[in-house]
């Protein structure tokens, strides 16, 4: 049922989702930590920026990226001036798009988890002589574990399902930028409904399994907490 190019697209999608999720976890953690603890007056502005991809049509983001990354765009010309190459139609370009696009799905659960930890456990740890770094790694992080799990799974699943951004900046190159949602779209357009059914079923199963895992584990975490 699935052709070799479908399997390639599937592999590429999983790799893209994995890389993007890892980058988001590393960069999103300090951001979420700061957002959860700061008393900065204009914090809401930054929160709105983080949430923007939730409501922005992906094609808008993709279009901006295409224009900005292009050799006539600001970032593209900067890259070329520095001796590099434009990132459109490359895997790295897709990673940049995915990181922006899936950001709220990672940062928001983390921020909520850090907020739920509260100040008290950290203050107690401080009175016992724990350094700020120590407090973060041995108190805040373990307590926020369910949040990390949710963030990772949602970021991953959302990237797997990404379409509009990739459509705009990917260029549909098999093995390089042709992800599974694009391959599926091609099958539908070319009236290859058999392959479309098969790929759709796989995407449905992946998404459903991931969400079931999130909800099941959330329940377990809630049961454990006092």
């Amino acid at each position, binding site marked *: 049922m699935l052709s070799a190019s479908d399997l390639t697209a599937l592999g590429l999608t999983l790799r893209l989702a994995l890389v993007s999720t890892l980058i988001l976890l590393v960069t999103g953690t300090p951001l979420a930590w700061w957002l959860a603890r700061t008393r900065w007056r204009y914090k809401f502005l930054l929160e709105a920026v983080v949430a923007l991809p939730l409501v922005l049509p992906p094609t808008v983001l993709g279009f901006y990226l295409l224009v900005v990354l292009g050799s006539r765009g600001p970032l593209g010309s900067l890259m070329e001036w520095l001796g590099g190459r434009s990132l459109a139609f490359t895997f790295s370009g897709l990673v940049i798009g995915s990181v922006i696009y899936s950001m709220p799905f990672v940062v928001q659960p983390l921020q909520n988890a850090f907020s739920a930890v509260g100040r008290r456990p950290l203050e107690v740890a401080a009175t016992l002589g724990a350094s700020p770094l120590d407090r973060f790694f041995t108190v805040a992080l373990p307590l926020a574990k369910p949040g990390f799990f949710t963030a990772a799974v949602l970021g991953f699943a959302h990237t797997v399902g990404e379409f509009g951004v990739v459509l705009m*900046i990917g*260029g549909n190159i098999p093995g390089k930028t042709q992800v599974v949602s694009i391959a599926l779209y091609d099958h539908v*357009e070319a009236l290859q409904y058999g392959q479309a059914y098969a790929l759709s079923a796989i995407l449905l199963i992946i998404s459903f399994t991931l969400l079931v895992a999130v909800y099941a584990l959330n329940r377990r975490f809630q049961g454990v907490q006092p």
Partner: protein
Amino acid sequence: MVNPFKNSNPHWAAVIFCLFLARADAEELQVAVASNFISAMGSMVVEFEAVSGHRVRVIPGSTGKHFAQIMQGAPYDVFLAADVRRPEELEKRGMVLLGSRFTYAVGKLVLWSPRPGFVDAEGAVLKGGNFRFLAIANPLHAPYGRAAREILQAMDLWGNLTGRIVRGENISQAFQYVKSGNADLGFVARSQLHDLGVASKGSQWEAPHRLYAPILQQAALLKEKVSGREFLAFIRSEAGLKIICSYGYDVPDP
């Protein structure tokens, strides 16, 4: 009590004048149009509405998508496709009025770059390979993409260029890739260069006809409707053909 007619006499006169102009049998016509033909369609609609008094609603999109929508009972009256296959397929399934299908335009493929002097008059730039990305429409379902693939295959370059060919979802996207500078050059529709008046800038090569099967675009009537018949007749009229030519298409031999 406010008198709604007070101070509004000129408006009412205008409305009555318009009603007088409008035909009693004016209809609203829904036309699904292939995205490559949208600009020409705009001029077509302006003239047709002025002549006939009917109202035309244009639904742009890819021919593949329109086909699927029509199969699912979309309320379109006329279908202007980007190929022959889809209208033919609809005819086989009895979803087109018999005898209404005809070729309204012949698309032309142009290798184009916004950079002056980049594309030479023989298209040798393709063989030179001095570029990073070449944009085409997706050959799987876009007729302009299929033609681009035929040209590259005829020049024996298709295999070598895989990995450097970026495929737009349709010809508009392929054009956008080139115009934004993300791809160095690309195969676009001649009509697109006409639209934007970019033909004078940059460099281009019009691929010779022998390298690809002609891109015939067919129209068909989906529902029996007076305005639909009138519109299709208008497309084939001298005025209609003139518009089509002015947007960079060839017209079918009579």
